[in-house]
């Protein structure tokens, strides 16, 4: 019997060792942070989380920060875009997350709601001049005035058009004065049918959110949520009208549908090869266009105006947030980093990469002299000044967006009518909004 007890206690000892090993990893991590015990002369360690690594954030920026801030010891934690959310969630659960990192703005909002993000409003107020920045600086601001992060950059959409296709068809190219009706009309004119098959479409009828259903409902006077971001507006007939226009384009065959896009190499390929004349293009995709389709003769104009004569330019932001659980020294170091990031030097680097629009006005001005395609970059920059809107992002965005997308997909492939679809969406979205309160 006593042997048995010995064996069991030995097993327990092994297990304790095992668990002790796993938890000690966490604590050393924490100890690495600011060296408060060693005195204030010790370097502050700043852990920066980089999703997508330096493909998204230039290494030049980080190196510049390290060089100009010798008292801050920078530790980079990289992970691919796709894995970053799960990595960070696990880290947060284990309290081992970086001090500062960036993710989609909507995700940041939910992190703020859950108490993980530091409210940066007081930092911004004391250290930044808001009028030097575009409104996008406040993409992560809640109706209550809390600011859960500052943008890594803004990624708006504009109407891209393939000049050769327009010239060949003898149709005048789009202008900034176009309305969505003009877009639909031109799409019909540019569509070429050969028997049952369509060899050229007027427009790419994407039904994802940013360059698909969201701009369509906004231009029709509708919206996903109301101004307070607490009520669904899918019961608004104008919202349904926007979805109906998108559906009609796909159903009647003057917008390229998802099957056609898949079969022909995707949205960029279809647009670049002239199989579709127009496309709502996100700013960041210009990099891919220039890399893969350098010979395509294309440019952009602003998104057409909506029925009320106003313009709505959907934009997505990736946002830096500071962990609210970091030590104060680390928070201060993180803010140093963000200040550096929002400064002239870095904002100029961001302009050059072309992967996102910077938020500082002076940096945006430099785009006027840009010689890379699309030449009319003002369509993006003036577009967001005139009518930049976020995707009705709130803390429950990730959840209600999935539910909307499920039904929108069904509407667009013709499995559900717009009328029934919006009823379904409205009930589901309102349910999520109510349960989130």
């Amino acid at each position, binding site marked *: 019997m006593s042997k048995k007890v010995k064996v069991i206690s030995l*097993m327990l000892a092994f297990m304790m060792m095992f668990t002790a090993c796993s938890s000690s990893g966490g604590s050393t991590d924490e100890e690495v942070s600011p060296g408060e015990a060693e005195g204030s002369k010790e370097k502050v360690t700043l852990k920066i989380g980089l999703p997508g690594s330096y493909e998204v954030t230039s290494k030049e920026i980080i190196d510049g920060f390290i060089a100009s801030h010798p008292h801050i010891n920078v530790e980079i934690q990289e992970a691919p875009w796709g894995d970053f959310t799960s990595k960070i969630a696990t880290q947060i659960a284990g309290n081992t997350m970086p001090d500062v990192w960036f993710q989609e703005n909507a995700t940041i909002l939910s992190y703020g709601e859950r108490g993980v993000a530091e409210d940066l409003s007081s930092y911004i107020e004391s250290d930044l001049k808001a009028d030097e920045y575009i409104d996008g600086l406040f993409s992560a601001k809640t109706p209550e005035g809390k600011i859960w992060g500052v943008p890594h950059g803004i990624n708006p959409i504009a109407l891209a058009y393939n000049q050769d296709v327009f010239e060949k068809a003898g149709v005048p190219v789009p202008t900034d004065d176009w309305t969505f009706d003009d877009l639909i009309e031109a799409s019909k004119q540019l569509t070429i049918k050969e028997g049952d098959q369509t060899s050229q479409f007027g427009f790419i009828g994407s039904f994802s959110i940013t360059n698909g259903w969201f701009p369509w409902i906004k231009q029709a006077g509708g919206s996903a949520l109301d101004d307070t971001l607490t009520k669904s507006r899918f019961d608004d007939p104008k919202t349904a009208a926007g979805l109906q226009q998108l559906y009609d384009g796909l159903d009647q065959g003057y917008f390229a549908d998802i099957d056609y896009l898949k079969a022909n190499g995707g949205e960029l390929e279809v647009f670049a090869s002239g199989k579709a004349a127009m496309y709502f293009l996100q700013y960041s995709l210009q990099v891919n266009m220039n890399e893969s389709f350098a010979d395509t003769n294309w440019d952009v104009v602003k998104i057409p105006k909506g029925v009320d004569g106003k313009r709505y330019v959907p934009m997505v932001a990736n946002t830096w947030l500071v962990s609210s659980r970091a030590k104060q020294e680390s928070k201060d170091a993180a803010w140093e980093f963000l200040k550096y990031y929002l400064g002239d030097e870095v904002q100029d680097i961001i302009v050059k990469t072309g992967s996102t629009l910077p938020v500082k006005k002076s940096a945006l001005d430099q785009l006027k002299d840009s010689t890379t395609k699309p030449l009319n970059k003002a369509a993006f920059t003036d577009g967001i000044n005139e009518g930049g809107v976020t995707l009705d992002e709130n803390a429950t965005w*990730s959840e209600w967006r999935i539910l909307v997308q499920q039904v929108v997909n069904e509407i667009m492939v013709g499995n559900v009518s717009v009328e029934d679809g919006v009823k379904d969406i409205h009930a589901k979205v309102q349910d999520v909004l109510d349960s989130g309160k």
Partner: protein
Amino acid sequence: MQKQGYWGYIFTLPFVINVVVFLLFPILFSTYISFTEWDLFNPPRWIGLDNWVRVLNKHEFWVSIRNVFVFALIFVPIQTLMAFVIAFMLNQAIRAKGLFRLFYFLPVVTPWIAGGVVWVWMFNYQYGVINWVLESVGLAPVKWIDSSHWLMVISSIAIVQVWKGVGQSMIMILAGMQNVPKEVLEASQIDGANGWKQLTKVVFPMVTPMVYLVMILSTISAFQAFDVFLGLFGSITTGIPERNMVPNLLVYRDAFLLFKMGPASATAWLLFVIILSFTLFQKYFEKKWVHYD
């Protein structure tokens, strides 16, 4: 002897630790969090039966259960039957037997990410090869996985799962068949049993334990279907219609996209109860047709 026993415990310790840390603890912990509200970021908050009630009251949960039941009902018999037939054929004296076995086993080792892409293309309504074949023989094209009828979609996906899983089941049954003594087959032949009779009266009864095992494993894998759905639909964020949902997709979405660990755990536990009852149901009928002698 005593000393040997002592070492036995030492050598099994890594396995015991593995079971405790990666199986027992998660099981107990998930039971606990199914009664809490937990977003991973803040400590769990006890809310009693709320998650269970909420999940049971959700339409999508019942839709997902319906789907997974129908999926299993289509998948398990087809897979078992096909695995049996293929194993019987490959057990004969045919040329290039090894090549055929490899051919049938290949899908098992094909990653879902590749298999999914291929099947999505084959199923494509406008450009897919299956509809192309149908149209070339004068039949109307079919909306395989884009259909508004859930039964059509679930059936199509069950076929894909058969493609993926039949190789493994076939190997198991084949192993059973190879244990059927040649003398028995020869004796049955002398007694006048040929072909069909030999298959049903001699071979089948002798491999019933393997067939039973294949059925149990297929049923469990059917109820756990996840990657086949994800492979064919792409990703949850791009919007899988509610009528095509299965419980594991809900668990994944709630836990890892929405950080709602409570409802995810409750759903997982409900799925466990269903799989257990279904397996016990199969076990109940085991004695009636499975021969172990």
